[in-house]
């Protein structure tokens, strides 16, 4: 399936933190396919991915008191939980593996692990942060990231002085980097 239409907002972050059940359903509608796909890639089976998806949303709702809208948008937080749930499932599978001494081919592909979920959680975190940069910083960084424009092309496109674009890029990129260093604190 294609990705469901996504329109998450800071209002929904706040409503989730405030415990509105409808927002959990909306989060599920928008992000359960992403959570499920990340889990299926790491865990290798639809059944395990179904279990992981269920666990992610249950964990998210039960831990909503620890959710801090200022630290991360709900989508990034959910994917952070996905990373942890995948890691837990892989650890459990490895324990089981040692117990039964079965053949290596039933182990999930170690190449995927939770890293893909980690990168995706960070990306969603950055996406939220891009929206908070303000303008023209947000547009400058989107052009640099997604359209691969050089700072000179961006300056021409947005009709801004070259020096302004360069200093916005430096400050914005540092700020985004700093955001990634903050732990998602996902349960």
């Amino acid at each position: 399936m294609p990705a469901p239409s996504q329109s998450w907002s800071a209002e929904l972050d706040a409503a989730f933190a405030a415990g509105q059940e409808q927002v959990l359903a909306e989060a599920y509608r928008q992000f359960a396919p992403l959570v499920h796909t990340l889990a299926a890639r790491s865990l290798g089976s639809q059944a395990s991915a179904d279990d992981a998806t269920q666990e992610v949303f249950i964990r998210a709702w039960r831990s909503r008191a620890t959710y801090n809208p200022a630290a991360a948008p709900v989508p990034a937080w959910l994917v952070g939980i996905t990373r942890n749930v995948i890691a837990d499932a892989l650890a459990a599978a490895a324990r089981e593996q040692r117990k039964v001494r079965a053949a290596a081919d039933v182990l999930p592909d170690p190449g995927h692990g939770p890293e893909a979920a980690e990168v995706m959680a960070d990306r969603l975190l950055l996406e939220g942060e891009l929206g908070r940069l303000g303008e023209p910083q947000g547009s400058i960084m989107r052009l640099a990231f997604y359209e691969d424009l050089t700072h000179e092309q961006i300056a021409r496109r947005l009709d801004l002085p070259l020096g302004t674009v360069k200093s916005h890029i430096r400050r914005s990129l540092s700020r985004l980097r700093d955001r990634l260093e903050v732990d998602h604190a996902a349960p």
Partner: protein
Amino acid sequence: MQHLDPELLSLLALDDGVGTDSEREHLRRCTACRTEYEELRRTVSVARTQPPQTLQAPGPQVWAAIHRELGLAETLAEDPLGGNVRDIRSAPPPRPGTAGGRRPRRARPLWLLAAAAALVLVLGIGWIVSRQAAAPPAPLAVATLEPLKQFTTTGSAEVLPTGGNQRELVVRLSADEAHGYQEVWLIKPDLSGLVSLGVLESTTGTFAIPPGLNLADYPIVDVSDEPLDGKPAHSGVSIVRGKLDV
């Protein structure tokens, strides 16, 4: 040699094509600059990570289990993904968010009653809105999509409000004629600027419009035929195009 300028490090991390040989040589040897560069580089690479293009939805039993386990309201029993029906347009989202943020978080006792009443009102409105949302909202703008040379596909595009000042573009085509894959763009009338909204996998698709994007500046809806060459730019081959009536 002195350390590299922070602006230069940022541009290097973005592959901006800047930097002299001696500056790059400094980057290879200087641990401080290198560490800074690698952190910025990782940030760029994370930002440029593409989400998976095709997603697998969990089965309807997953939401049923969550709903049961958490004891959610009966009105939320239906799978938000629409059960086995994967048509995302047929499952309009509840729109609970707008009033939620204003609800006082740490209510004093005097506030409790008002807050509870407000909550009932909010949930009631949310319920009514979600019931009414079965009829799609009126489009903010529409475009008729006409084929360009060598193509015969026609179609339409609609800009729909999605709450919280967000907008989405719904594209419907009569056929998929791409040799590679279809990508949806919003373009300035003089073609001096373009924004990619994403990949259209079949003949219909829904795309979030970047907040703050002025559609009057980018009124042209364009669906291109993109080869799988890893180049993010428009291929120059458009299948259909049309102008939004903004």
